[in-house]
């Protein structure tokens, strides 16, 4: 299997750990000496950079959280003078101030390398033509993927987001072989192309998705429509954007760029590192970042790690697809529900469309959860009993998976609003 950085991607575990330890020691000292917040935090608990002697010692370093990034908005976490920063990105900032990230020239180069590796493991080569449907702007996705594609040596078409009809036209006319989009927008493009009857004119063979989590069922549905191979990759603005990890052709977890990021999976409440295979919150440390080094960032994303070498030949640690964010987890009548559980049920049913929304409310002190999903199969319209059976079937499947009675409402195709950026599937109307 083709690799972009085979010397890194097939390193022996012992060598990876050795490299990570050296880089960790360096980045801890670097952050301590150049970022006032880290110096204050370390000093407050009497921690010195030289106390980090093993990888395990990382657990003595306090976490960095989203609030820390907000409190230091916009540039107080930079470790270099602004002159050395060649680019700034920021998160979408749905709540209050955005999260910023500053990059030195070396940071940008490393970032592109991470992306080039991820695209290569997804099956891309320098022959591919990439249609980038991520927004270009402060969002890390557009420019991040863009320069990664260039580094790979493939062709990049910077379409950006929006105007779906035009996207379809360009996909067709420019003959893109690979699509870069959020999973929800990739699905919307696929549905729209199908509706317009142009699927046979598309040359797509790869769909590289990021910026939101997706499920195996969603990948399968997308594969069915487009006939292209879907993979997912992972990253977040706080540690530089996409490029932390990505799926290879085995689709057995996302390979982490371990020379750039040190991953831990933690049980936060008990402040306990979890062993391989156990699910907890992903905590990331940047190992090479000059512009804005981040130590032990709490991603809020729930996943697990495996260090088992992959069938593809890579030895890098793999993280499971994110099952949800601690932020996304809904507690309904005391039951923990992740929207991804609901998605896996809906995507597995061919009678349904591929877009849905979840509405949570509280009526008379009782939590209610409603799922709205589009009807897909016209064969259901011959009589009411078929539609009613379908509703009953969805309710039953949801009950098995989430252990709650979920209200199901069938809606008309294309009546649920499509997102062109990050999708918002859940509306929580409860007043906490």
């Amino acid at each position, binding site marked *: 299997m083709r690799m972009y950085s085979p010397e890194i991607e097939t390193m022996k575990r012992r060598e990876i750990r050795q490299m990570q330890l050296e880089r960790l020691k360096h980045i801890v000292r670097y952050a301590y000496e150049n970022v006032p917040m880290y110096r204050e935090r370390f000093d407050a608990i009497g921690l010195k950079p030289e106390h980090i002697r093993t990888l395990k010692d990382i657990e003595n370093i306090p976490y960095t959280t989203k609030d820390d990034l907000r409190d230091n908005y916009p540039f107080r976490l930079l470790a270099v003078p602004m002159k050395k920063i060649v680019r700034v990105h920021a998160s979408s900032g749905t709540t209050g101030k955005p999260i910023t990230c500053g990059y030195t020239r070396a940071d940008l180069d490393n970032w592109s390398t991470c992306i080039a590796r991820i695209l290569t493991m997804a099956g891309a080569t320098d022959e591919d033509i990439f249609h980038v449907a991520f927004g270009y702007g402060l969002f890390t996705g557009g420019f991040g993927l863009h320069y990664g594609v260039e580094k790979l040596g493939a062709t990049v078409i910077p379409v950006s987001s929006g105007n779906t009809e035009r996207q379809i036209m360009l996909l067709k006319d420019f003959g893109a072989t690979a699509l870069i989009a959020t999973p929800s927008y990739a699905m919307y493009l696929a549905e729209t192309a199908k*509706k317009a009857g142009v699927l046979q004119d598309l040359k797509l063979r790869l769909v590289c998705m990021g910026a939101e989590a997706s499920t195996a069922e969603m990948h399968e549905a997308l594969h069915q429509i487009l006939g292209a191979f879907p993979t997912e990759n992972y990253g977040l603005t706080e540690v530089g954007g996409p490029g932390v990890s990505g799926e290879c052709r085995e689709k057995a977890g996302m390979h982490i760029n371990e020379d750039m990021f040190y991953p831990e999976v933690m049980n936060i409440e008990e402040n306990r590192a979890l062993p391989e295979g156990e699910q907890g919150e992903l905590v990331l440390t940047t190992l090479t970042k000059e512009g804005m080094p981040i130590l032990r960032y709490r991603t809020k994303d729930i996943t697990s790690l495996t260090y088992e070498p992959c069938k593809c030949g890579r030895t890098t640690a793999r993280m499971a697809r994110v099952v949800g964010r601690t932020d996304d987890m809904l507690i309904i009548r005391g039951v923990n529900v992740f929207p991804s559980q609901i998605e896996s049920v809906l995507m597995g049913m061919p009678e349904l469309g591929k877009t849905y929304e979840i509405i949570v409310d509280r009526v008379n002190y009782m939590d209610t959860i409603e799922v709205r999903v589009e*009807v*897909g199969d*016209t*064969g*259901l*319209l*011959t*009589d*009411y009993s078929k*539609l*009613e059976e379908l509703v009953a079937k969805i309710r039953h499947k949801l009950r098995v998976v989430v252990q709650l009675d979920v209200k199901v*409402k*069938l*809606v*008309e*195709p*294309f*009546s649920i609003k499509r997102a062109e950026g990050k999708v918002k599937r859940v509306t929580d109307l409860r007043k906490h």
Partner: protein
Amino acid sequence: MLVKQLSVFMENRPGRLYKLTHALGKEGIDFVTLSIADTKDFGIVRFIARDNDRAYEVLKNEGFTVGITELIGVEVADRPNALAEVVSLMEESDINIEYLYSFVLTNHNTAKILMRVNETDRAVSLLQNKGIKLLSEKIL
């Protein structure tokens, strides 16, 4: 022999029926029949248009989910018990009527019945044997 009917899935909320009827109206497509039953959340709008094929294309392009169903159409005299006779014919032969609607055109002394049954072929031959006049789309 059979009459094609279009079925459209429709959410039970204001403005939806207008969207459908207007989509066809502005294309100059006439309704021959239209029937709606509703449940709490959604309904199925069933209709026959003067030009069913075009109506199907127009609605597909507007993003509606459209299905095609074949109905049995019969013409009976517009007098008491005419409908009951057709229904009893089905019942005696254990054929289940899933739904039915009927109408009388002005200036006609016959009534038209459109029905969907669980065993279409058998129902058609029963009706034919009884000499009941079956409708095709053209007669409508």
